[in-house]
């Protein structure tokens, strides 16, 4: 009996560490495959014409992948070592777009998942809470007016996002807040910031800037290069690492405020710091990809429906599903209209919106998590 119990104990111990379920592993694998396939399709198209095979050969060219100089050129902006034209086209013009999509997808998904737990609100996302439009305004102002500050874009975006988030929260706060109040406050703040963004167009000198600004406001990955990767990768990595480590805190937060407090959590502090992480994550994405609508809202839902509501699994799921969906959407944005490239935000909005409506119809109640 005693032995049986100890065996039982060990079995349970293994399961405890193993919150990783087969379903999660499968989900992540599938997401990775989608990311790779979509990425390969993405790098096969462009002005410089090459066949699929040539493009893929260039991607898996060992002399680039295992070349430290090449990576240092990509990541730190040093001089590019010599390589074939195909390699140059694929690695300097096309691959960075895929990497930016991966970074933006992962950070937006994780940011949305954190906001949904912190506010305990299924409708929360960087967009709904005003973070996107606040960060968007800050970035736009930088691009149009203070173009010298471009390297600090994520920081500036984070400041704008924080300002908007604090505004939304203080409007919605009345001794606590409800999902509906939060969403309504978000709508108001969003409108104000969108007006400000449009107002900025009057300060733009030429039409080119306006066009870039509009593409950017709808969320576009067109023309992103290694510079964007360099800007976003560090804040993204830090935010993702903290978010993964904080998954258990989010789980406890999901038990409700008073339970979390009884368990010894300093609820306000944890909420505040994790919101900051979510803002940094969203800002990293917004700084390089613009405002990609619906993404931070919908992806956590998709992941939750597949792997369940445990944040340890949800975070990992978002980390894989976000890139897969963003890279795919970007492929869609590039190929849907044949010649002309759409901003990726148009695609995510067109697919994400209806998907979210479908979710609302399917579920009995929507709002509080």
């Amino acid at each position, binding site marked *: 009996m005693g032995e049986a119990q100890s065996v039982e104990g060990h079995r349970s*111990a293994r399961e405890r560490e193993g919150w990783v379920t087969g379903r999660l592993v499968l989900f992540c694998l599938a997401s990775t495959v989608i990311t790779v396939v979509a990425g390969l399709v993405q790098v096969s198209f462009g002005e410089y014409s090459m066949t699929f095979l040539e493009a893929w050969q260039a991607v898996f060219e060992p002399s680039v992948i295992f070349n430290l100089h090449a990576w240092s050129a990509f990541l730190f902006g040093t001089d590019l070592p010599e390589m074939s034209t195909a390699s140059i086209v694929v690695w300097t013009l096309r691959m960075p777009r895929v990497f930016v999509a991966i970074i933006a997808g992962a950070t937006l998904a994780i940011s949305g998942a954190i906001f949904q737990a912190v506010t305990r609100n299924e409708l929360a996302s960087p967009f709904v809470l005003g973070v996107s439009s606040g960060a968007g305004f800050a970035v736009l102002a930088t691009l149009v007016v203070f173009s010298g500050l471009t390297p600090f874009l994520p920081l500036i975006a984070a400041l704008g996002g924080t300002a908007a988030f604090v505004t939304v929260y203080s409007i919605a706060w009345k001794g606590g807040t409800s999902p509906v109040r939060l969403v309504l406050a978000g709508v108001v703040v969003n409108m104000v910031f969108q007006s400000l963004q449009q107002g900025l167009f009057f300060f733009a000198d030429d039409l080119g800037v306006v066009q870039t600004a509009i593409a950017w406001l709808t969320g576009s990955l067109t023309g992103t290069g290694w510079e964007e990767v360099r800007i976003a990768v560090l804040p993204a990595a830090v935010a993702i690492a903290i978010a993964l480590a904080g998954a258990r805190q989010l789980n406890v937060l999901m*038990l409700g405020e008073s*339970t979390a407090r*009884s*368990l*010894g959590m300093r609820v306000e502090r944890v909420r505040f710091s994790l919101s900051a992480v979510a803002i940094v994550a969203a800002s990293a994405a917004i700084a390089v990809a613009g405002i990609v609508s619906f993404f931070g809202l919908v992806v956590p839902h998709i992941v939750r429906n597949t792997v369940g*509501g*445990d944040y340890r699994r949800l975070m990992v799921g978002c980390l894989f599903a976000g890139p897969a969906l963003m890279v795919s959407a970007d492929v869609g944005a590039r190929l849907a209209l044949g010649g002309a490239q759409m901003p990726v935000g148009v695609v995510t909005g067109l697919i994400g919106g209806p998907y979210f409506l479908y979710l609302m119809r399917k579920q009995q109640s929507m709002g509080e998590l």
Partner: protein
Amino acid sequence: MSRTQQSADREQERITDDDGNAVESALVGDDLELSYPTSEETIVDCARLDIPEGAVTALVGPNGSGKSTLLKALSKHLEPNAGSVQIHGKDLDAFSRKELAREMGVLSQENDSLGSISVEDLIYHGRYPHRGFFDGVSEEDQQAVERAIELAGIDHLRESELGQLSGGQKQLAWIAMVLAQDTDVLLLDEPTTFLDIHHQFRVLETIRQLNEERGVTVAVILHDISQAARFADYLVAMCDGELYDWGPPEEVVTEQLLADVFGVEATVEYEPELQVLPKRALSNSRS
């Protein structure tokens, strides 16, 4: 006022138990004045409240008498306007939240319904105050969780999702979570309300067992005065935000108390055991 004064006097006398030994208080509320931030009105005004060490104390009183508010102050969920709370002689403010959570387990009245969490995962959250930010699950955590599951008798439910359980099963799962916290003091806000009679007894028996086997001090709000009278070692009767009376059930539960506090006419039988038989509501006693 005379009532409060009187009960305060009685309490001074009765700091000894049946054998004449002094009873230590695990939790003491001193001169507490409580109100919620949203309103000016003082909800609880209580000169002194003792929760005796190693015993089960039931807080009873009608709706709105301030029981839950008092419990919130005792568990540092509500900052008192005046007065202080001490646990084992040490002021609550001297503890950090985590330190306090290692001393005192609290189960709120309403727990948000979480759909997809498994019972075992829920119970592991009870180990939160014992774990650091990056800590994994230790041997000790595991043992505490196994003990809690066994004590609550929900081994067969450990893999179930919380959302699929009945109200009573859910409550047992939440209680197991608080048990896993492994504290010397336990505060429970109406753990039996809305449960069927079987699960009411399951919950009460779990509490009693915990108290007897591990000497845990329990303060529990119970809705049902007759249940409280049979179950608890001590009763604290609250009325309109004040302490009406305090002591062993045989002394506290009287027909007078039921009329004054609960506004019911009732007979109380003391032999062979304490029994409360409510008869009808008194129309003039409460507005």
